[in-house]
């Protein structure tokens, strides 16, 4: 169980020496941190391996794909999983996913270029506890981020603005 797959070892060595963009998420691993150069943010992982976290972020986007959402919203949603008691479940689940990915596409999950190919793998693991835990957590992890709401047009709390009585509750003009 603890033995590393040779491809992973090789990749880790490579990452440690130079740092590379992994997969479609275009997130760079540097030491114990994930860095998005495009979006200018970094995420330090404490318990999970940075590779596991970057895989989770890609999985999150593939589970709830919104082209209007930047990676950082998915990264924030995945922070909940950086916990010691979840480490084994997550990393074991990712190992299984990557094994499937290697068998079918000859590369790790995050390196597959097409969403449809990645989701075909997710469909195979969608009944596993790891997938279910991730999907369930993302429902609030993504959609309950207040920063995400305006990107969908949702306006959130209205009481402090006096409701919508003078702010367009009946302003529809195209009917």
């Amino acid at each position: 169980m603890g033995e590393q797959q040779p491809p992973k070892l090789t990749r880790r060595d490579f990452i440690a020496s130079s740092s590379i963009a992994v997969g479609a998420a275009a997130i760079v691993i540097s030491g114990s941190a994930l860095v998005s150069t495009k979006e200018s943010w970094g995420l330090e992982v404490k318990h999970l391996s940075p590779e596991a976290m970057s895989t989770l972020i890609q999985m999150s986007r593939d589970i709830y794909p919104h082209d209007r959402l930047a990676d950082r919203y998915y990264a924030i949603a995945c922070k909940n999983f950086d916990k010691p008691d979840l480490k084994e479940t997550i990393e074991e689940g990712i190992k299984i996913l990557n094994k499937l990915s290697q068998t079918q596409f000859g590369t790790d999950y995050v390196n597959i270029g097409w969403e449809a190919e990645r989701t075909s793998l997710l469909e195979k693991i969608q009944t596993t506890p790891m997938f279910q835990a991730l999907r369930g957590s993302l429902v609030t992890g993504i959609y309950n981020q207040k920063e995400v709401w305006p990107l969908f047009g949702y306006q959130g709390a209205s009481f402090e603005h006096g409701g919508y009585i003078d702010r367009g509750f009946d302003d529809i003009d195209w009917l």
Partner: protein
Amino acid sequence: MVKFSKDDSSVVVVIGSGAGGGVVGTDLALKGIKTVILEAGKRHETHDFINDEWDSFSQLAWTDQRMTSGSWRVAKDFPQLPAWIVKSVGGSTTHWAGASLRFQEHEFKTKSTYGNVQGANLLDWPITLKDLEPYYAKAEDRMGVTRTNGIKGLPGNNNFKVFEKGAKAIGYKDVHTGTMAINSEERDGRPGCQQVGFCFQGCKFGAKWSTLYAEIPKGEETGKLEVRPESYVLKIEHDKTGKVTGVVYADKDGKVQRQKARVVCLAGNSIESPRILLNSHSSMFPDGLGNSYGHVGRNYMRHMTGSVYGIFDKPVRMWRGTVMAGIIKDEAMHNSSRGFVGGYEMETLSLGLPFMAAFLNPGAWGRSFTTALDAYENMAGMWLVGEDMPQETNRVSLHSTAKDAHGLPVANVHFDDHPNDIAMRNHAYKQGSAIYDAVGAVRTFPTPPYPSTHNLGTNRMSEKPRDGVVNKWGRSHEIPNLFVSDGSVFTTGGCENPTLTIVALATRQAEYIADQMNKGNI
């Protein structure tokens, strides 16, 4: 505020402070009767309410463990959340949408009207519409229901305008902004609706009727009503003669207390009320209080429900304004040529983005799901609510292993849809989609039932003791000073949102209890 002694055996103890308990308790106090309301939840006032779906859910919802079984989809999607109801002073009148509809005449006599429906345990109510009409009138007045008592209707919001235009386009006639217990203008010391949205999260303006601020304070002013929040009832006790004598509850520190009582009114909703009766078993009542004929917990109803959301190519912004101020009544009648008995209402509904993500298609993922949410701003929504068939096997029972913090079995809610419920839901989905298609929807979504908000029927009212749990006054067939005062007394469910009927029954029951006490009969 008045405080009664726990040893005062002259008080009426009401369990629960929602539409049933809050009204019975307030009315008894107004009639000069000493009353204690035990409420499991905390007391949150309007200023405490939160315009945020999940934070409000944490604040108000009953999230103590419950279990589910049966083939209903809620058991799969929300296995420990069969119902979305409230644990807070005011009960589910803090959360309800405000739709206030009278039952139709035939809905009090479904067995006579619908005939034999296989697998359905239909029964006529021991009362008729005529019996309840005066109390409906009182309820509408006290609650300030729009389109009654000369109160004007609420204005239509964006979601309503889409709904109305589609409804008329396919030929529906009886379409308006509803009979709502939400002030369209200032009344009874409460302001008119400010179109905040967030009706389900507690109305911060208090424009929507709730026992929390529209009833209970009036009872408390008399000095005859004490509301004791964070009082979680464990069991009802009785004496050798089979009369109830008091209520055992856990206080906010978990300490067990015992309040003596002359009369007990049980109004903990259709899940907790039967659970309390079942957990109150004794050597004299081995199967639970009032359960000699085995009906306690049975015939659980939740209304046929579902939703339809439509996506348009331009913005709707359905979340703005009163959530449920919109109704189509054309399908509410009984007309078996549609392939089912009973009828259904169509009512506007909106959810915020967080709840839409949780409830649109629980468990779904991938682009077919997320492209729906991408169009959230362009979405309109409606709720479908119809009469479901009572079935003996749909049942609230004590779970065999799961226990609460006090070591008592939690409730298990078992539910299977009746074929009539499924036929009605499919009809309603089709009609709902047609409404949105008629105004140019690009996609429509038949959305599965949410955790139950209309929990009914588990202590049904019957003329004969062998057919139910309580009589036409909500009084236990076997225990003369035990009453049930919530929606669990519904013999059958009707297709209307139940709160107005619960309030009418509670008003009527309070009159009866006061009269019987005056006469020395209890």
